[in-house]
């Protein structure tokens, strides 16, 4: 790899201070550190450093995103073939899925990447690798039918308003990917909600609701049987519990499979990158709130009567729990704070789902809501800590 090294060494003076491309140093730095761990030596403090850096950190999250990504791609093709009444083959489903999902991901990375670069260059800092995660998380939260220009607008809003206006990576209050999604959700609701957008299809007038939509609006005696029987009649969907767990149902690209998210969850916890505290507390919060609402449900037909395992496998609950709630920048930073933060996300997500008929999916809003409160939670935890210090000093 000596020749690549030589190229970089030759180009370096042009990009460093005083060079003709000084302006684009962040781009040079990003490419160089992508290919090499440079021999930059420690200058002060600890003489040796951990092998973990932000590239490794973010790429581990990317690896954890691969299961929902692959399953999402397959599922887009699967739903297409199913709606068209064609036989389902693995290869053709994957190819169809790629045909629709890949452009969305490419647009997300390309447009978001340009914004990253613009801010890195004008602010004169390195390109932060966190965008690699945002750029993939965002498309996975979108329906496969999303117009590409909306992807571009959404990621732009997410990166610029969600992150850069707060000062860039590490300073943002909200998760940028969710800010982008929330923007699209409120600005262009027709393309991101309802029963027409979750399946890519050429069949005219096709409608394919998500299980949550069914649960919020049905005529059956029991909410469970309403979900389970929904697709069966039309032969279009199978909302059985195992099928919803695996994720072969209509929905946003990456969120349909609780199973894939759980594999990602295992990767994140095993490597110590994702906070298990937050994941567990989101689940506990959701469970506690569901049990409470189950007790309040007037009858079995009510959305309130839906048991927790249904909530877990439908919509973005599992995906949000594993990948969104755990974003360390927008989450609470103290360990007690993480328990409170996660618990409230789970609880609020269920409240929004069941008590607010306008939004059958509550995970995104719950996480954004708690993002806003995370600094307050930390503040209270820190104040408590300071009070303990004061008390200790007097003792």
């Amino acid at each position, binding site marked *: 790899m000596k020749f690549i090294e030589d190229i970089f060494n030759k180009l370096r003076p042009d990009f460093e201070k005083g060079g003709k491309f000084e302006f684009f140093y962040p781009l040079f730095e990003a490419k160089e550190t992508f290919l090499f*761990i440079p021999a930059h030596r420690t200058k002060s403090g600890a003489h*040796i450093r951990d092998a973990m850096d932000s590239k*490794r950190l973010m790429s581990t999250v990317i690896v954890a995103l691969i299961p929902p990504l692959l399953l999402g791609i397959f599922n887009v093709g699967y739903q297409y073939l199913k709606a068209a009444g064609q036989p389902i083959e693995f290869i053709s489903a994957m190819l169809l899925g790629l045909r629709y999902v890949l452009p969305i991901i490419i647009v997300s990375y390309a447009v978001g990447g340009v914004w990253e670069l613009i801010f890195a260059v004008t602010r004169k800092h*390195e390109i932060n690798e966190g965008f690699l995660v945002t750029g993939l998380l965002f498309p996975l939260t979108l329906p496969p039918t999303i117009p590409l220009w909306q992807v571009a607008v959404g990621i732009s809003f997410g990166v610029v308003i969600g992150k850069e206006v707060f000062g860039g990576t590490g300073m943002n209050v909200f998760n940028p990917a969710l800010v982008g999604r929330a923007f699209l959700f409120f600005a262009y609701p027709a393309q991101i909600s309802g029963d027409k957008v979750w399946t890519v299809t050429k069949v005219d007038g096709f409608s394919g609701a998500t299980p949550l939509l069914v649960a919020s609006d049905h005529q059956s005696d029991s909410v469970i049987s309403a979900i389970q029987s929904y697709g069966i009649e039309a032969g279009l969907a199978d909302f059985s519990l195992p099928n919803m767990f695996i994720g072969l149902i209509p929905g946003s690209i990456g969120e349909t499979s609780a199973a894939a998210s759980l594999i990602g969850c295992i990767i994140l916890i095993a490597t110590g990158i994702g906070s298990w505290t937050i994941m567990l507390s989101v689940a506990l919060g959701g469970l506690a709130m569901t049990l409470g609402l189950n007790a309040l449900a007037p009858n079995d037909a009510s959305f309130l009567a839906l048991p927790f395992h249904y909530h877990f496998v439908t919509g973005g609950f599992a995906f949000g729990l594993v990948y969104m709630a755990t974003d360390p920048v927008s*989450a609470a930073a103290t360990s007690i704070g993480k328990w409170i933060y996660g618990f409230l996300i789970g609880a609020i997500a269920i409240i929004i789902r069941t008590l607010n008929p306008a939004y059958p999916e509550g995970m995104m809003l719950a996480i954004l809501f708690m993002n806003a409160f995370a600094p307050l939670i930390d503040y209270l935890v820190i104040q408590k800590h300071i009070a303990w210090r004061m008390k200790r000093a007097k003792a």
Partner: protein
Amino acid sequence: MSNFSLKQGYDIQLNGESKKDIEPLPIPKLFGIKPNEFKGIKPKVVVKEGDLVQGGAPLFVSKDNPDHCFTSPVSGKIKEIKRGHKRVLELISIESDENNDQIKFKSHSPEVVSSLTRDELLPDLMKSGMLAVFRQRPFDNVADPLVKPRDIFVSTFDTAPLAPDSNLIVKDNESYFQAGLDVASRLTDGKVHLSINGKRNDVSPAFSQAKNVAIHQFSGKHPAGCIGVQIHHISPINGRHDVVWYTTVQGLISLGKFFINGTCPNDIVVSISGSAATDRKYFKTYLGANIESIVRGRTEGDSVRYISGNVLTGKKVDAIGFLGYYDSMITIVPEAITPEFVGWMRPGINKLSFYRSYLSSLMPGKKFSIDTRLNGGHRAFVTTGDYEKVLPMKIYPLFLIKSILAGDIEEMEKLGVYEITEEEIALCEFICPSKGNLQDIIRYGLNLIEKEG
């Protein structure tokens, strides 16, 4: 005896441990004292280049208290008084006459030592420069003779990577060590707290059966051996004026020798360790000895870094530099030279990491030979909750760091800045994926407080 079992921490597994064997070295030709190692004093030089000095003769004194001296370790000629930026005094080097001629101070029998009063001890401690074996917290300044410390703390074990074994250092010096403890106990109205390693069952009786002290047992990974962590658990520092002193095993041995023999002892034991060192063992050498006299012929590789101290908190020194006054080890590690192609994408069998994202985490007990690579670029703080895993103190390191970056002194005080120094935060710095310079930040915060208020 109280027991503390600390859960948080991390032992960095490095190759290059020293053999438990002490080799005496001849007295070196060149010595150096670095005045900026004695934090908190404004040094005023009292010698000129070319002057002849005896061991124990003052080289410089504190501007605020001219009786508080810092002395020459050996007899010889002042070779150079080196000043740096803004005329800050950087180095006083002494060419040894190889006679090791020492000024005589009062000597005492061991029994008498334990009955001397603080007022009887202090004048000799200040005049001989021996007071410098004590440092104080908060701030990690050299002990101020005008302050009576609440307590005095001693850690008898070092958990830092490749740290020397104090059992070996105290061997044959047990009575001096106890005399040192006796002296320390006279300098405070409080207690002398002695911490011993709870993970070992062969702790030297000089430590486990020490008299005139309160003994505490600490078990845990690094930084369980750090004095700040121990103070936090035994009897925490509660404010700026809650001053405690601390010293080391070698410091106490020297102190004992000084009062019993009546001369400033200048012999110390230093270990050589690290993956770029050969002939790794312990050497009996001298305070302020030049590095080359110790490491010559004991390194391998073209480009190595000499560190006076351990890999986390030690100072980089040139071969022609000098051993730090408070250091009892020299670590030699390879410098990073060649870039590593797609390093961050590799499975990482040879990558040392606190996290579990490299394959090496599946090989517990494996030891690593790593170089001085930063392993990444400086980034904004992103992750949370990691620092806490390696800092066994009830403190919020990230919030403290941020309050320092914001220059908010009141907030720093509330968050416990007085309990922390570079030593305690160093492991957080090691594991930081954003490669923040946390030790510098902590020192910046402490300096800011000292300067402004």
